């Protein structure tokens, strides 16, 4: 069993009354509340920023002060801004029709008053003094809208987000179906909150505090512009939080922190660092899930990913990678199964059976244990025997798991560019250019010899490209030196075409971080 599963490393589980809708509490106890599959990397990052911003305002950024639960924060809603940006199609028409700025403003105020939703007061006239003409206003809104995060998806306007230029751009996901705003969990499914907690508990929490604080404060003209789009009055904020991350320490937290820290240290211009934070954030979330799963499976194996450097046709590496993907893809399911089995093998369960004088007594006692352990059993209406009870829990747990947490490996894997179907109809690991770029920026401060880089990718993430790494993990019969050499060569060609590798000769190549600052 992993040292990280020791009792002193586990955060006491929350009160059930905080999470009355959740039953069974099982995925949540293994990975946290909650690891949610239908959240894209950007939305995960935005949710993280929203939590961080709330905590910064209360002077507790990345500092849980020894209390691991509950983390609470008060996110903004910024409904004026959101109406202006995303619930405002008329602005462009008005800008086109009226050359007279005053008439344009008048027309627009009348329109927006009718359209606006969720704002306490439908008065947008504060805007008129803040722009020289209506056209300036409209042109800037058009430009800002271009920066919307995932603007090509068809989300309703209350779930659309502006690029995070700074604090004034951050707000929570909302549902306005009833006309009154309420919290929406579809886009902000709490995984961003887990990301925040992971960083709090990472060894690098002190190092990244200041750059994250700068990003949140956003001393830049775009954040100022966004501020000008909002009225001066402060909004009434509501308390949110109660996410649960089960581990006080975890190797994944440190690796995540390390990578973010490296990215910040590159000093990339303006907001260019974000795309890498976004990508690596979700990548580490996926790694966290698999690594944790392995602890519960008690395989004792390191999670690893045999990666194909995209080849034009089928290769041995692709075959190996497909199999490897399928093995990894059942890790979390096995973890859930094992977790359920462990309940039935626990001392309390056994003694409940031993101490009972009848089968029904044992059943009642075990039902009690289950209620305490996973907050489930009251809904159970099957036969009154413990075997059916366990079987039913397994059944329900698997169903629940497969709906969401069980998809994270596949969904996040694809979204961060690790998992791909390119050139085949089956999934395998074939990192795309963007992911490779982020990995280089996070791991190569200036330049690094290629073999050393490949070794680092393996040690840190379990990514396998080259023969040296493959040889360590593959059984002799699957290891083909030539195939892995060719794979490395393909990787090399790709990095080189991205300007991120220099080959000096057939014996010597360096991975280059193109953003390295000159020494």
């Amino acid at each position, binding site marked *: 069993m992993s040292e990280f599963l020791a009792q002193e490393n586990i955060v006491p589980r929350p009160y059930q009354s905080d999470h009355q809708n959740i039953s069974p509490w099982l995925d949540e106890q293994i990975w946290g509340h909650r690891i949610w599959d239908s959240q894209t990397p950007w939305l995960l990052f935005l949710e993280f920023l929203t939590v961080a911003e709330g905590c910064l305002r209360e002077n507790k950024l990345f500092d849980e002060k020894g209390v691991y639960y509950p983390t609470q924060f008060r996110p903004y809603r910024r409904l004026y801004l959101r109406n202006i940006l995303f619930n405002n199609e008329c602005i462009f028409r008005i800008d086109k029709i009226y050359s007279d700025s005053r008439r344009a403003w008048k027309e627009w105020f009348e329109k927006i008053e009718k359209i606006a939703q969720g704002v306490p007061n439908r008065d947008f006239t504060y805007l008129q*003094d*803040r*722009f*020289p003409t209506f*056209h*300036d*206003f409209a*042109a*800037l809104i058009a*430009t*800002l809208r*271009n*920066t919307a995060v995932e603007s090509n998806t068809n989300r309703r306007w209350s779930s659309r987000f502006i*690029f995070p*230029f700074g604090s004034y751009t951050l707000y929570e996901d909302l549902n306005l179906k009833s006309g009154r705003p309420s919290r929406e969990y579809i886009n902000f499914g709490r995984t961003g909150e887990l990301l925040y907690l992971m960083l709090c508990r990472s060894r690098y929490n002190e190092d990244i505090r200041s750059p994250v604080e700068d990003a949140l404060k956003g001393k*830049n*003209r*775009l954040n*100022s*512009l966004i501020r*000008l789009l909002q009225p001066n009055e402060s909004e009434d904020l509501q308390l949110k939080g109660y996410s649960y991350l089960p581990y006080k320490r975890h190797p994944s937290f440190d690796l995540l922190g390390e990578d973010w820290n490296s990215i910040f240290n590159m000093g990339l*211009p*303006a*907001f*260019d660092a*974000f*795309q890498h934070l976004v990508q690596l954030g979700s990548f580490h979330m996926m790694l966290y899930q698999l690594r944790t799963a392995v602890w519960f499976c008690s395989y004792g194996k390191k999670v690893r990913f045999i990666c194909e450097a995209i080849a034009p046709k089928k290769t041995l590496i692709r075959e190996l990678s497909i199999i490897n993907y399928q093995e990894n893809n059942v890790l979390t399911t096995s973890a859930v199964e094992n977790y359920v089995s462990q309940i039935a093998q626990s001392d309390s369960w056994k003694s409940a059976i031993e101490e009972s004088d009848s089968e029904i007594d044992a059943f009642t006692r075990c039902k009690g244990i289950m209620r305490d352990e996973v907050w489930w059993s009251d809904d159970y209406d099957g036969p009154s025997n413990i075997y059916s009870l366990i079987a039913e829990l397994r059944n329900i747990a698997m169903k629940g798991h497969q709906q969401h947490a069980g998809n994270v490996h596949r969904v996040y894997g694809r979204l961060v560019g690790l998992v791909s179907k390119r050139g085949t109809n089956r999934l395998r690991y074939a990192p795309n*250019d963007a992911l490779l770029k982020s990995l280089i920026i996070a791991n190569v401060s200036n*330049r690094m*010899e290629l073999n050393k880089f490949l070794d680092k990718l393996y040690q840190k993430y379990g990514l396998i490209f080259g023969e040296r790494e493959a040889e360590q993990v593959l059984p002799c019969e699957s290891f083909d030196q030539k195939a892995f050499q060719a794979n490395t060569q393909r990787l090399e060609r790709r990095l080189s*075409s*991205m*300007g991120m590798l*220099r080959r*000096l*000769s*057939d*014996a*010597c190549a*360096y991975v280059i971080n*193109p*953003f390295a600052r000159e020494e």
Partner: protein
Amino acid sequence: MKRAEDWIRFLRKYGPIARNGNMFDEDIIRTSMRTGIAPITFEHPLIERLISCFDPFSDSLKSVILTGAAGDGKTHLCRQVWEKLGGDCEVWASDEPYVQTTIQHSRKGLIQIHIIRDLSAWVPQQGMVWPAAKEDLIVRFCNLLFMGDPNELFLIAANDGQLIETWRRLDAHKIAMKVSALFEKLLVEDKEEDPSVRLKFFNLSKISCAELFEQALKAIISHERWKDCFEGENGESITFGRQSPIRKNYELLCDSLVRERLKTLFDLCDYNDLHVPVREILLLLANAILGHPDCGGRLMIPNDVARVINSGTVSKASLYNNIFGGNLSVISQDSIPVFNYFNLFRIGRETTNRIDNLLIYGEEDEQFQPVFAQLIGSDSFYGANAAYHSAKRTYIEGADEDNESYKTFLDQLVAHRRALFFKIPHDQEDALGLWELTIFRYAGEFRKKVFHALKEGHKVERRILSRLVKGLNRIWVGMLVDDDRELYLATGLSFSNARVSRILAERISVNPRLGQKVDIILKNNKPVLLVALSKHITCTFQLSLIRYEFLSRVADGALPNSFSKECYEDIMSFKSQALAALSRRRDEDEEEKDEDLVFRLLRIDEHGNPIEESVEALDV
């Protein structure tokens, strides 16, 4: 006759045949001693500077690292140093990787010279423990580098990978780590020296392969043994007579146009930073003369010639095709870098309607007849022979759907296009579109009007600069901008490298104005695009041929797929550099930063003119 035949067999040893790579130099020397045939030698461009490091009258004695890829001639150069220093030939012939000698220095007296001619053979194998003596020697070398006036010197030859690897294995010694970092720096930054150490670091992979080619070619065609082949009786024999493909290929290599075009191919390698070692240049030349796909090892020996002539397969010995390794199997072509590089230019595969019309209909078409006769018809060796005519007829008539005969003809077309690349005379280059036979349509222009023009101290034509600026603008802005008078530095609101960048940061005048300018200049002997944001703040972008081609094609309105992915990121990182330079200028001049709320939005009108519009918010 035997002398002539021996020579051909000797030459064949330089060709693409299996052999012991590490011992190439030693092998050739041994064969040479045995047969009495002088090896193919020429003065290496580095030799003088190398020997001067050990000059007994010099006051700047330096140790030397001689690095480079396999086949760059490291061992060969070491041997020349050894001989120059009066080292014993017997000792050298011993194959001992580490040898020593002394020189009598005019001022310092006796100086010991350590030569490690093959580092990989000398260091203990991976995983083995270092013998103390060897470890000490390397540490001694490291310490020596930092000493003022040494009385012993080293010459160490190793390929760069081994060099780095060997020093990494000595990481217990601080000094070795320091030297290792130094090697890395010299390698990656392409430097010969570092002020902190007494060391010359010669990287043979950095020597222009076009220059080496010229020397190698001269050495091969002027070799004394050719006389034995072509003069007197032998010159009338089947093997070396007028009908002999060996002789024909030799004569073609002596032809000035063929030589020039061949050199151009090596130029293209240089322009693309593709390095060809000396050994491979010799390999290519030996293969060019002797290549024939139907002979043993796909290289002719004297006995083969009669059979080749009688079987009517002389055309398969075509030098034009052999230059690209066309006589070899695809696997061999792929495994030999020089053929790999030459095939990147896709000569034979790229074509135009004009060229194909000439080849297919040239004989019958009035318009093409004279050119066809001149370039193809008159070539009784590798021109249009009976087999070509019959394959062509089948192809044109297209009567049966026999893929095999189509393929035969298409293969022949490839060979003919390759031949054309070496045959089109200067005055018809433009009319026939010589460079359109390659993937680099702008290569001729790049060579003549950029590279050579700059070397001769001329300025690059304005029209070329304008084209590159236009290409750069289109890529940086992400819109079909037509302006070439100013360079547009634009970003997205969120990402500086957004595909479409609508926020204008700065316009830089191409003509010199207030310290700003865009120009093409030479830097470290290579053409670079220079963008000056002020008198002191500039950034440069090396114009490799592929980048030049890419920018030019983008400016012409086409985004070739094969190039786009490769070059796009590259050119975008140059934009990042330019943006960084801009921010330096703003810091320095205390210019207004982009912190006020005025935004310069960029769009283009229907004619492709960029239009700048300022919009603003008022900070209340």
